[in-house]
């Protein structure tokens, strides 16, 4: 893979399971090798919410979520030692931006405790606290979602990219159909990104998972909602600021929502009680979309496509080489 760094190669290698059936014959039907699969780890703890739904999801303390996070990271990387697993994804010197989704307020935003749990696990692996930034586009939205804001250098920081002296780059940068000014937190300061979206549907794009979560990294997301946000979501993820820095996607599925997104509609919530994790953003979005579709079917709702909002950006992202959306190329590892 031209231009692939050692770290990226190592990350992709350990994050996938290899399936290489070798054939002794070199005849026309010989199978030389099959493509490595993208692993999406699904870690579920039935009963985690105690039957109480969204409110309970918000009350789970970070200390209870650290084991869940670490199991997900170990499963996603295929490495049993958590420190080693993290070090295949990030370095201690990285400035790690943990992108949450705080749009929908306290009920349906990435739970602060989960973000905190990831930060704690990273610190145990050797990443200094001051190198970890929990962020979204707006400090006001973060605060409304229950995040305690902080810029103290000796602790995990939490603030909106709008609070920086220069929130956005002064000139737009292109990525396919996208032409946007990137948040300087992403373009200048973070050297690695961990994306923690929430497991929910979206009124226009079908689902709002990892790739859609990066709309918070540009100044003009409102311009990119036509045509079910396609190809815009996929194009955005091709930009080096994102593609080159994304290390892991962890979907907050403690309590998800299968209809009425992106804002909170408790009547359409479901207690998934777990996380999805993977390095392949397309595969993670594909699995997340499948889970949402399963819920819609179980509740006798139209599919997203029948509802006029197919998440076609996922296939577009696969065509752009960001990952795979093919079920037979994804190892959906359920724990």
């Amino acid at each position, binding site marked *: 893979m031209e231009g692939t760094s050692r770290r990226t190669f190592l990350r992709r290698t350990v994050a996938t399971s290899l399936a290489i059936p070798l054939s002794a014959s070199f005849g026309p039907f010989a199978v030389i090798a099959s493509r490595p699969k993208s692993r999406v780890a699904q870690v579920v703890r039935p009963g985690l919410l105690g039957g109480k739904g969204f409110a309970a999801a918000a009350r789970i303390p970070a200390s209870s979520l650290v084991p869940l996070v670490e199991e997900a990271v170990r499963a996603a990387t295929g490495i049993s030692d958590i420190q080693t697993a993290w070090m295949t994804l990030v370095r201690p010197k990285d400035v790690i931006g943990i992108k949450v989704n705080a749009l929908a307020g306290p009920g349906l935003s990435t739970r602060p405790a989960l973000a905190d749990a990831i930060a704690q696990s990273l610190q145990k692996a050797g990443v200094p606290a001051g190198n970890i930034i929990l962020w979204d586009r707006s*400090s006001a939205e973060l605060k409304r979602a229950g995040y305690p804001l902080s*810029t103290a250098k000796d602790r995990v920081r939490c603030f909106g990219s709008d609070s920086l*002296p220069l929130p956005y780059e002064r000139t*737009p940068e292109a990525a396919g159909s996208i032409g946007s000014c990137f948040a300087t937190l992403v373009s200048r300061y973070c050297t690695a990104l961990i994306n923690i979206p929430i497991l929910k549907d979206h009124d226009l794009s079908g689902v709002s998972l990892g790739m859609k979560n990066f709309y918070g990294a540009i100044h003009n997301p409102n311009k990119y909602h036509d045509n079910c946000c396609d190809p815009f979501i996929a194009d955005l993820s091709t930009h080096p600021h994102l593609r080159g820095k994304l290390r892991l996607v962890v979907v907050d599925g403690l309590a998800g929502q299968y209809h009425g997104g992106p804002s909170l*509609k408790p009547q359409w919530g479901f207690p998934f009680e777990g996380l999805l994790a993977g390095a392949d953003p397309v595969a993670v979005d594909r699995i997340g979309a499948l889970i949402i579709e399963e819920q819609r079917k179980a509740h006798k709702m139209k599919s997203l496509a029948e509802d006029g909002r197919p998440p076609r950006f996922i296939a577009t992202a696969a065509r752009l080489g960001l990952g795979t959306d093919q079920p037979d190329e994804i190892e959906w590892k359920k724990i």
Partner: protein
Amino acid sequence: MMDRSTLSRRGFLSASAAGCGLWSLSAFAQDPLPPAIDLSLDASPKEDSLFVKEAMHYKKLDALRVECRLCPRRCQVADQERGYCGVRENRGGTYFTLVHSRACTYHVDPIEKKPLFHFLPGTNAFSIATAGCNMECKFCQNWNISQFRPEQIRSLYLPPERLVKACGETHSKSLAFTYSEPVVFYEYMFDAAAAARPAGIRPVMISNGYIEPEAMKPLAAHLSGVKIDLKAFTEKFYRDTCSGELKPVLETLRLLKSLGMWFEIVVLLVPTLNDGEEEIRQMCKWIADELGPDVPVHFSRYHPTYKIQNLPPTPERTLVRAHEIARQQGLHFVYLGNVPGHPAESTYCPGCGEVVIGRYGYHITQMNLQDGKCKKCGRAIPGVWS
């Protein structure tokens, strides 16, 4: 290196302090983030109450969704989301404008700069804008306000009554809603125009014309003049270069004509994209046939900006040729913009050919109108002259 045996207590303390300073500097230098991160959020609630008002022209849908009826995009917006323009937001099933009285820029301009050449010539227009736009022209010269969200740029609280007062203070005969796209700050424009007219101020809208007729009609009752940017005469250009549509803009022009509104048209010619002779011919024919030969048309020059920076500025010969084509199609008042000193900046009587208003750039050099008529031959020159 200091000899320990000769290190005094003062020297030790001094060296220690210097070392701490160096350590602090070192630690600061290693912090990847800038020091001045502003987490003050106190202003937000106050700003919200000043600028946020329920929008006009929208319809409530199921599941707390709304459909905006202000412009032909007809954005269907879920709760907590915004429309394409970025300045209207659905909150709990009610649609709000976020920019009422939220001016991000203001300036006193000659009315000729809008450009409005047949509207109170030689007077000033107090000009304002908010953030936002319902298109995205890749050559937008005001992109750093039109393509941003209101919370991303600095703004001032300038309510309608303050605008009317500012017009008086600056001796401005007109109040111009301009720079970005006033359709998206409709409620602000509507209220300000309604306040301005009774005070003797003439409200004018400088717009892309991408607005629903049912929104344009009530607004027109409070406006005195309109300038429409006709970006091109193909749907392809509107779609590919402006993220808009041609047909609704043509409908707006027809509507303005039917309402008896004074309006002028600007066409910005972008080399290779909308400057073809046949396209200009068809455009001018449409204008002459549908709107009449007396509608002033300004051909303006593009300069590299925003997302189109690889094309040269429009050659003067392209503008001159467009002028010729427009005159051949029977249009009486055709102007060239951004070409200071060109004869086509002046207004000529369609009857006798004499200069009725001489111009150099935005400046009036001679005025040969009397009661709205050519001084020489007495022909009525259409416009708003007083």
